């Protein structure tokens, strides 16, 4: 199962600057695991050690925000890794 992952700019140091990459996985957890295998350390910057999404990270499948890593991801879906921050 391959989807497209859109990478927010704060995470592109892991992807060599790539803003969009293909990743494998049938769930959000599997997609993130695939990313972390290829770009070590990337997952922990988004997901804490208790598998919670960090406060300034938002995960979308297409236009739907997901809050559980077990949410399914289908072939041809677009996963958005979004960084949300306020303040200076």
């Amino acid at each position, binding site marked *: 199962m391959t989807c497209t992952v859109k990478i927010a700019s704060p995470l592109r140091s892991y992807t060599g600057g790539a803003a969009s990459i293909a990743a494998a996985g049938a769930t959000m957890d599997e997609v993130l695991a695939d990313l972390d295998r290829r770009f*070590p*350390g990337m997952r*922990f910057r*988004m997901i*804490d*050690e*208790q598998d919670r999404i960090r406060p300034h*990270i938002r995960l979308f499948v297409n236009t739907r925000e997901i809050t559980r890593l077990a949410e399914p991801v289908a072939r041809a879906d677009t996963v958005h890794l979004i960084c949300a921050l306020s303040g200076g």
Partner: protein
Amino acid sequence: MANTLWVGTRKGAFALRADARRRNWKLAGPQFLGHIVHHIVPDPRDPKCVLMAAKTGHLGPTVFRSADRGRTWREASRPPAFRKVTSNPETARAVDRVFWLTPGHGDERGTWFAGSAPAGLFRSDDGGDHWEPVAGFNDHPQFPQWAAGSATPDGEFLHSILVDPRDARHMYLSISIGGTFETLDGGRDWAPINLGIEADFLPEPDTPFGQDPHHVVMHPLHPDRLYQQNHCGIYRLDRPASRWARIGKAMPRKIGDIGFPIVLHPADPDTAWVFPMDGTSVWPRTSVGGRPAVYRTRNGGRSWQRQDKGLPRSQAWFTVMRQAMCADRSSAPGLYFGTTHGELWASTNAGDSWRCVVRHLPEIFSVTHTA
């Protein structure tokens, strides 16, 4: 002797380099622009090695390592993280920031310790690449009382990890808020050591833990001598005694003895420097009266002298954070502090006079020196 000051800021890492005379400082950086850098610590066992504790506004905490004096950096393969739990994971601890880094004992090359917020102790034995939680502290039966995670909205900070140069198994750490703790067995068991430390913000001020140490230091040549800058004053402890003495009572009353950093003379255990801040009423935490000054003792805290030559005479309202003041190892020690306004001040005569060597940096969190 070359001199380098590593400067961690709210927006990245900088380095200031000078020759042996320490007169002309050249600024390099930023590196990791936009990262919140709490601590940059050179390894005294290997001068080429430097560790940095960082995160960004968006992204979780991590540690970067350099093996070439900061020219290039690699991220830790396994950054500090608490043990994963299966019951009630929604309330389980997760590292929000790596706040403190300490090299291990001189005989344990590659060993490092890290302190986090919320309070946690972590250890690496491979130069900071892989980190493990120290279960003896993080999962101590009394830990929920020592650091409940709710003392302040940001959670408690674990800092001032001190390793006895005579015995790697003997260590101290401090939690703000929580107190100071000691292990004699390499971290398997810990006990509070806070007798004599005031906690005037608590319903029961005379408590075995719950105090607010801001910065605790151990003299490298006389490891039985500890100093502490606390939320409630300046203290000294000479082991094997276990009762701290409030040496800050000798500070001028109009200045008080509240502050964040405390710095030791590299060779003289009776000499220390502090940077007092306003801890009255609503706790402005700025330089007292807008007139910044360093205070020095040369007799273990029996008396203090003001050192403000060269510093602004008025309307200067900055703060010096607990990691943002340090000394070098010269016989007439250079002293350095960074401010929340992004200024780096230096003295090459043990604090007798000061000059600003760089301005307009981001808010400074840490300043460390390496030769």
